[in-house]
């Protein structure tokens, strides 16, 4: 007898011909039901492979037909797992395995309907623009960029997606989680009164620690070494606040109805040896919102410390706690606990994406996923420089971390570790 604590409700989708799948401008292949939907996966690591398995489960017509990565070994491993998970829904011919930094272009041109983007985040704006320009629907992992130029690019891409009636679902998975959605519905319907403050924590161990230089294989280029250890370089990763704690930033944004803050101040730095990487290992960001509302985001990736991944939302008549114990709860004048079934939020992202495509009501998460990412980048800017940063400043920042013309050959100008008080805002 299984322990019934978690259930993934199976999404059924409309099977009637009457479901208005026909629409002007709708790619012919998606008219009607159970037509194949061809999926291409860009970035075949753990998350990408997971996303592909969810995409293949989301729709009876889903087929994986193309993959792109810079590592053949990673591709092989991913395809082997997906074959075990999804059987004959995996139909990737050898000629549709694309390798290299430009593989995403070839994948997009190879005959796909939906593109899954799961590479290190530096590449995301480039990949997203290419997919949308080519008329593809997209599942776009978080964060959606590592710098402000990338955020602006994504916002433009999001507008294009809307004009072209393309679906764009963000990998901010908590927005697709039933128990977290219900919690924010409670907040937005006044369960805690007016929000006064939000405290979010993401205190963990290092995610992908940089190996010491002694472990660098002889003969590989700097670019290869960085790509292999992308987490430790902010031009690829965005830093821990943007890569990991961005979930906390997104939940703050969600609570604030995706309206931007006025400004932020932050502390941060690097304590443990960086071994050549340039990311911080701790941040604390203080966001000022209109009406004197404040949000505090603390994150840390250091061994041996207190670990916590929680959200505390303090309101005029109550408080929300997420992440202490198994279920979120509200205390105060309108107490509440989640009593439903938790869902598989990753599966839900894809169920929603594919259903929205079939229904010709494509979801577009593009703008809010960009502003949530910007919230993290802004906090990083404030911590790196030690300065107060306004939203306008951040949105207009000209600092380029990820060079859009990166081809793997030319050296990348990797900034040294930031030093508050010395590093200048750009």
């Amino acid at each position, binding site marked *: 007898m299984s322990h019934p604590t978690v259930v993934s409700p199976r999404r059924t989708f409309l099977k009637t011909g009457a479901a208005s799948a026909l629409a002007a401008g709708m790619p012919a292949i998606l008219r009607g039901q159970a037509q194949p939907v061809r999926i291409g996966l860009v970035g075949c690591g*753990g998350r990408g492979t*997971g996303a592909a*398995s969810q995409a293949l489960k989301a729709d009876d017509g889903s087929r994986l037909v193309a993959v792109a990565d810079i590592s053949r070994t*990673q591709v092989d491993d991913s395809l082997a797992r997906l074959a075990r998970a999804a059987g004959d829904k995996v139909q990737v011919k050898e000629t549709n395995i694309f390798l*290299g930094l*430009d593989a995403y272009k070839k994948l997009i041109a190879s005959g796909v309907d939906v593109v899954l983007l799961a590479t290190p985040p530096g590449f995301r704006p480039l990949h997203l623009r290419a997919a949308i320009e080519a008329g593809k629907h997209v599942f776009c992992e978080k964060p959606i960029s590592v710098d402000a130029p990338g955020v602006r690019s994504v916002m433009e891409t999001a507008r294009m997606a809307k004009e072209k009636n393309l679906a764009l679902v963000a990998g901010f998975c908590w927005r697709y989680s039933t128990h977290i959605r219900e919690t924010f519905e409670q907040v937005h319907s006044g369960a805690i009164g007016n929000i006064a403050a939000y405290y979010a924590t993401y205190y963990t161990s*290092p995610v992908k620690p940089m190996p010491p230089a002694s472990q660098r294989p002889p003969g590989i280029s700097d670019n290869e070494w960085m790509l292999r250890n992308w987490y430790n370089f902010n031009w690829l990763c965005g830093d821990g606040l943007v890569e990991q704690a961005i979930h906390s930033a997104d939940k703050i944004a969600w609570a604030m109805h995706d309206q931007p803050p006025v400004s932020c101040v932050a502390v941060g730095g690097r304590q443990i040896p960086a071994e050549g990487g340039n990311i911080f290992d701790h941040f604390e960001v203080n966001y000022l919102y209109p009406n004197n509302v404040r949000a505090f985001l603390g994150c840390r990736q250091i061994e041996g410390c207190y670990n916590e991944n929680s959200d505390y939302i303090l309101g005029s008549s109550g408080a929300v706690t997420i992440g202490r*114990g*198994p279920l979120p709860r509200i205390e105060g004048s309108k107490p509440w606990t989640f009593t439903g079934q938790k869902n598989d939020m990753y599966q839900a992202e894809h169920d929603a994406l594919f259903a929205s495509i079939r229904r010709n009501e494509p979801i577009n998460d593009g703008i809010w996923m960009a502003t949530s990412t910007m919230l993290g980048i802004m906090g990083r800017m404030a911590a790196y420089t030690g300065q107060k940063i306004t939203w306008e400043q951040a949105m207009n920042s000209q600092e380029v971390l990820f060079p859009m013309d990166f081809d793997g050959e030319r050296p990348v100008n990797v900034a040294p570790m930031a030093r508050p008080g010395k590093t200048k805002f750009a």
Partner: protein
Amino acid sequence: MRFAILLLFAAVLCAQKGSIDPAKERATVEALRKRIVAAPAPATGKAYKQTIPASDISYEMLPIPAGEFTMGTPASEAGRNADEGPQHKVKLEAFWMGKLEVTWDEYRLFMFSQQANETPGADATLDAISRPTRPYVEMSFGMGINGYPAISMTHHAANKYAEWLSAKTGHFYRLPTEAEWEYACRAGTTTAYPFGDDPAAIKNYAVFDANSNGQYAQVGTKKPNPWGLQDMHGNVMEWTVDQYDAKTYANAPALSIMPWVPSKTPYPHVARGGSWSDPPDKLRCGARVSSDPSWKQQDPQLPKSIWYHTDALFLGFRVVRPVKVPTAEEMYKYWNNGVEQEP
């Protein structure tokens, strides 16, 4: 422009892929067995307290006598499931069992070797034992650490903990078999609970849904069973080494001797005892729970972690130490029974 040299990510993948290298693991087990056989054993039939070397963390082991018992539940038992029958006789050899569920204090020494004051290279056999990867999030989910039961570990992780503890102490520890667990839970009784069939008194013996305030409690807050074991019912449910099979009992002979079910598939394995989130009928001595892939629902990766269940806040374990040290091959089988690989 083409990226001239494509990367080989084999090294990146090895942290996750590295479950068991059979040849290496066999060598480790052989070495461990030598260490265990050479170490002094405590007096049979007596409880003992053990400090984990190079730490100030200790645990207590209670003697469980050899004997026979009737495993399973009668059709008349309220709240039972069909997989608990038919009842059948089982004969077991003597062992010690942890008085309490393994705590975070103990388990974190296994998760974090620096906390265990281990120096890499000082003990090659210890170094060869697989340790959990770093968790992405805090696996107690804020419910408490010191003195609280460790949770969220996979069946494989629990097995490796037992192997690690064996290396540290020179004793042979492993997960209990499903039969050993039920035998120890019943503690010589034959009713649904050791105190009888009526669950009214369960609140004195168990942290369960009605009294848990929505989370686990520190270990050892409730009354022991007749053999001194605490929290066999409730608090966290406990891994056993067996693969779950609904037909185990139906296929049992007239007398099973030291039975256990080796795994053929990554799921399911058996967990016993019920948890802080369960009602009384799930806390009966005979109740069986099978592990499920949904216990890793929030794991975003594929492959999912072989060390952590992201959605099993109700699940931990305790260890046993058989009096008789088995062969190295048997030790290998116990410690490597079932790795939850998905897919």
